[in-house]
């Protein structure tokens, strides 16, 4: 049991990193990775939203949609539920924890049904995970996103400080750097199975 959960966790952080291997959630990855503190805030917000979304969408899928044969409405129902949940979370944070709201609040509206968040919810169902496995998997994906954001923001600040040729300035060098990080993460393929094998 524990072994399965660890495999799910590690493989969703490293091997199946949503940003770098599955190319989901590229928009915040490129948009908010200029500074380390912003990248960290975004990563934590995404992790929290992913956990919450999975905790809610998993029961909806198995106890509501599947029982009345509405599995094909998955995408639209999930979008609806996640978007409203994030809104609620923001309102409640603003009321009960202004400090947390100040840190995460700006990022929350940005990720209401970000494709990575929706992707986690749907993939957990497609992979046939049970509830606990789904939660662990979304935690792993969130942490993987955080890791990718932090790594990339570090890389970007290094790029900003160097003299690079004019045609590569700005987005061009950012995209090339992203592809290199992605290539590096491809190297993790197969490592997790061996670890526990």
């Amino acid at each position, binding site marked *: 049991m524990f072994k399965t959960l660890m495999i799910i966790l590690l493989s969703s952080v490293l091997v199946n990193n949503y940003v770098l291997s599955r190319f989901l959630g590229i928009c915040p990855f490129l948009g908010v990775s200029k500074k380390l503190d912003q990248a960290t805030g975004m990563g934590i917000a995404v992790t929290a939203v992913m956990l919450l979304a999975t905790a809610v969408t998993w029961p909806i899928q198995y106890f*509501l*949609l599947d029982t*009345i044969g*509405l599995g094909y*409405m998955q995408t*639209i*129902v999930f979008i*609806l*539920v996640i978007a*409203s949940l994030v*809104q*609620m979370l923001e*309102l*409640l944070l*603003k*009321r*009960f924890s*202004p400090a947390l709201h100040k840190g995460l609040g700006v990022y929350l509206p940005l990720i209401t049904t970000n494709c990575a968040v929706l992707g986690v919810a749907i993939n957990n169902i497609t992979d046939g995970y049970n509830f606990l496995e789904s939660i662990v998997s979304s935690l792993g994906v969130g942490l993987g996103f955080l890791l990718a954001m932090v790594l990339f923001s570090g890389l970007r600040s290094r790029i900003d*400080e160097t*003299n690079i040729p004019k045609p590569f300035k700005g987005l061009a060098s950012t995209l090339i750097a992203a592809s290199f990080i992605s290539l590096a993460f491809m190297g993790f393929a197969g490592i997790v199975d061996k670890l526990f094998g």
Partner: protein
Amino acid sequence: MFKDIMIAFGVVAGIALILGVMLAVISRFFAVKEDEKLKAVRACLPGVNCGACGFKGCDDYAAAVTEGRAKPNLCVPGAETSARELGAVLGIEVETPEDVVAFVHCNGNCEATTRKADYTGVASCKAAAMIYGGPDACRFGCIGLGDCAAACPAGAICLKDGIAHVDTEKCLGCGLCQTICPKHIISMVPQETKDVVMCSNTDKGADARKVCKNACIGCKKCEKVCPNGAVTVENNLARVDHSKCVGCGLCAESCPTGCMKKVIFPDIPEGVDPREIIKDASV
């Protein structure tokens, strides 16, 4: 067939309704009461977050003004307009702040001065200044890598011939460039300024002249010629007391190196909201 569609429709509509009601309830009962006064105060400020007031940004300053922790005339970009509107919102009399613009006290352009080294490091004055005081021959002059231009929220500073120039029409007077310049050669001068010294070199005349053709050599001609005693030479460098200067231009005529200059700063025309200018400038 029709039944299936209706079931799908009903379920999604039901979920949407439940969520909608929950959102409405939460936003109604857990709403954070925002101070109406704070909103009104914030609306008076330009929103460039320049920090000239000494607070973290316009929001922070608005909160401070609302709570009475700060004076309402500290906003430099908003100047008179903001101060007057704030006074109206708060119902108090406000002294309007003095209009100031940034001025670069250096005229060591490419023709006048030379470099003692070729600098190829990080393109930032601050970094360059750490290596033997910068690559320029004059250790007081403008390095010309544009830290001030990068800091300027209004895009009012441009680099020409190796030194920074302030477009006084765009300058908000926030003073960010003054803080960031590692050589401290930018100062805030009143908008009515008429005569200025375009040099910051306090070396002795011969040494100053050796590194820059336009340097102030501290000859005191301007001090002698000024009818109002507005110009004084301290530490081999002329300084103008703007409160005494009437703008006769005699000092500029007498200056042998041309480091005294007569200037006319364009004033923001009457009735124009400075915040509009900021908006145009930031686009």
